[in-house]
């Protein structure tokens, strides 16, 4: 077992609102290891994107990181100076966003934007940087890079924009890649191509990734391990095969069951809605929607418990439910 590249411990990010302080990320812990993709799954508002922004120290105001550690090469990113974190960002740790169009600068060519990263972090001169940018565009699968290098973002398709953004993210050979819904805005055939690209980038070097997605299919396809988030906290963490074979948390089970099954015109819904973070239920956050909630579930919040790599935040986790899943 290799040491993790990046370790998140008890990360808590809060926002002050009129209704009081809400915790968008509440005590989240996980580790990103070399050569692996960690999937972070959950529905909108569960805190998965805010987790990535917290790691990068890019939490938008009025949000702030309240507690926790983000350890990278033995240093805590959350306590280091602004200059230090800035030199790591985009260099050793980089991020790919969902909407490539809004992440790219519309008034600079793709080549300029990739070269900029290399000039800032690698100190290359203009010509060297452009040469390297062209090589990177080729690496991420942009056809005819010598010509496309002078294209502006609006001249490219969504898939090509996302490739350019990935080229920027990996320009400095980062050790950690944070990808926030990198394929959600893309069509399914292009999504498959981008996922293959992310996989290739992770397997080729000393690099690990956090892949944030709402799509369990994407997780099943590329992730090695998975954290499932619900209402700000991690409710289950497991190797990907285990998670699908034997999900432990009733929310994970519900998510897997809510995927359409071929040849069957019935859809298994999780009743109710995701709770308002400003008005969380007492006890387990999932208990109002949980089919097996007991009295204790509304009184105490369960711990994220289990053996290494296989953690569930539930008083009644279990196999018997996985067996039921197959019966239904």
């Amino acid at each position, binding site marked *: 077992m290799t040491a993790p590249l990046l370790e998140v411990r008890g990360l808590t990010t809060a926002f002050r609102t009129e209704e009081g302080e809400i915790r968008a990320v509440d005590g989240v812990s996980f580790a990103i290891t070399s050569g692996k993709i960690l999937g972070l799954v959950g529905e909108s508002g569960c805190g998965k994107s805010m987790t990535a922004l917290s790691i990068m120290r890019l939490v938008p105001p009025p949000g702030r990181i309240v507690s926790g550690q983000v350890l990278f090469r033995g240093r805590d990113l959350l306590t280091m100076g602004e200059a230090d974190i800035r030199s790591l960002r985009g260099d050793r740790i980089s991020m790919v966003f969902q909407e490539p169009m809004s992440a790219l600068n519309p008034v600079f060519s793709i080549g300029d934007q990739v070269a900029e990263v290399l000039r800032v972090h690698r100190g290359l001169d203009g010509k060297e940087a452009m040469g390297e940018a062209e090589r990177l565009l080729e690496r991420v699968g942009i056809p005819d890079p010598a010509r496309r290098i002078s294209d502006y973002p609006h001249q490219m*398709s969504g898939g090509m924009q996302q490739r350019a953004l990935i080229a920027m993210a990996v320009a400095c050979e980062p050790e950690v890649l944070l990808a926030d819904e990198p394929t959600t805005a893309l069509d*399914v055939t292009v999504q*498959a191509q981008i996922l293959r690209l992310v996989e290739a980038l992770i397997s080729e070097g000393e690099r690990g990734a956090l892949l944030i997605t709402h*799509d369990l299919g994407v997780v099943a396809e590329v992730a090695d391990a998975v954290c499932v988030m619900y209402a700000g906290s991690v409710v289950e963490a497991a190797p990907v095969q285990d998670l699908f074979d034997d999900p432990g948390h009733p929310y994970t089970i519900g998510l897997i069951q809510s995927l359409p099954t071929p040849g069957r015109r*019935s859809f298994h819904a999780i009743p109710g*809605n995701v709770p308002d973070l400003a008005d969380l239920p007492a006890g387990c956050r999932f208990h109002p929607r949980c089919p097996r909630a007991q009295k204790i579930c509304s009184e105490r919040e369960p711990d994220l418990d289990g053996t290494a790599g296989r953690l569930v935040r539930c008083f009644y986790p279990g196999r018997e439910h996985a067996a039921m899943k197959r019966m239904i």
Partner: protein
Amino acid sequence: MPLPELLTVEGLSKVFPVKGGVFGKIVGGIRAVDDVSFRIMKGEVFGMVGESGCGKTTLGRMILGLLPASSGRVIFDGDEITSLDRAEMRPFRRRMQIIFQDPVGSLNPRKTVGSIVGEPLRVARRSGESVPAEVEEILRTVGLPEGSAHRYPHEFSGGQRQRIGIARALILRPDFLLADEPVSALDVSIQAQILTLLVDLKTRFSLTMMFISHDLRVVRSLCDRVGVMYLGRLVEVGAAEELYSRPMHPYTEALIEAIPEPDPSIRRRSEGAEGEMPSPSDPPPGCHFHTRCPLRIDRCFHEIPALTPRGEGRLAACHVR
């Protein structure tokens, strides 16, 4: 015995003019929908799938008469409706309804839910009088809580807002419901709630449905038959299970192959279709898919393949298969 058909689309096309120059002269056209023909049987759920820009939404708008067709015909229950004016269209409007992807943008934020849902009824009856009993009933039917009629759209969650949209569409008891990406904006756990509701309502109201979606998993589970569109053209039609398990058109095959399967044990290593969909403003000649097709032959570069019967109700537009 074949079911009688409710909707027939014949050679439907839509060309959006492209203007250029200082005087806004029409310099060209984007063929968003290109000679599309298919039928939907009574009681059927017909799925139309394709990636963004394939023309599926434009096609839906033309079928409902919300967008004039450039050419071709739409026949609804025996009547041609393509050439009707507003007044002539009115009786058909109440029989054909639509639900949209964005439940927020399609609901007026300043009106109560009761007013939004009751509006089609008031318009159809051309009376200003309120229709609370019918509104209450339909709101109950779509699973909204008691007292919803007096509240405003922003007080509801995304899933509940889609229920409001469905209530508004169904209050006139239509025969045909066009659902344009109705669950795409919703979270997975909520999607299932809305899909379950649609399946239930289809039976209860004897609806015929056309379900437009880019989500191939949902379409497979929900639909009886499925059409696949690529760059404005219909490239394949078939029974859902048949089409998914034995795709005929190489594009259908690429699409299905690209669906991420929620099963880590069957990971794929291939990339599926190479490249991306060309711009609709400059589609390739011949078969639109030839630029990405692994099976292309010379003929595909210049000759448009016709959508031809392949047995058991299957249609495909491919020179090779």
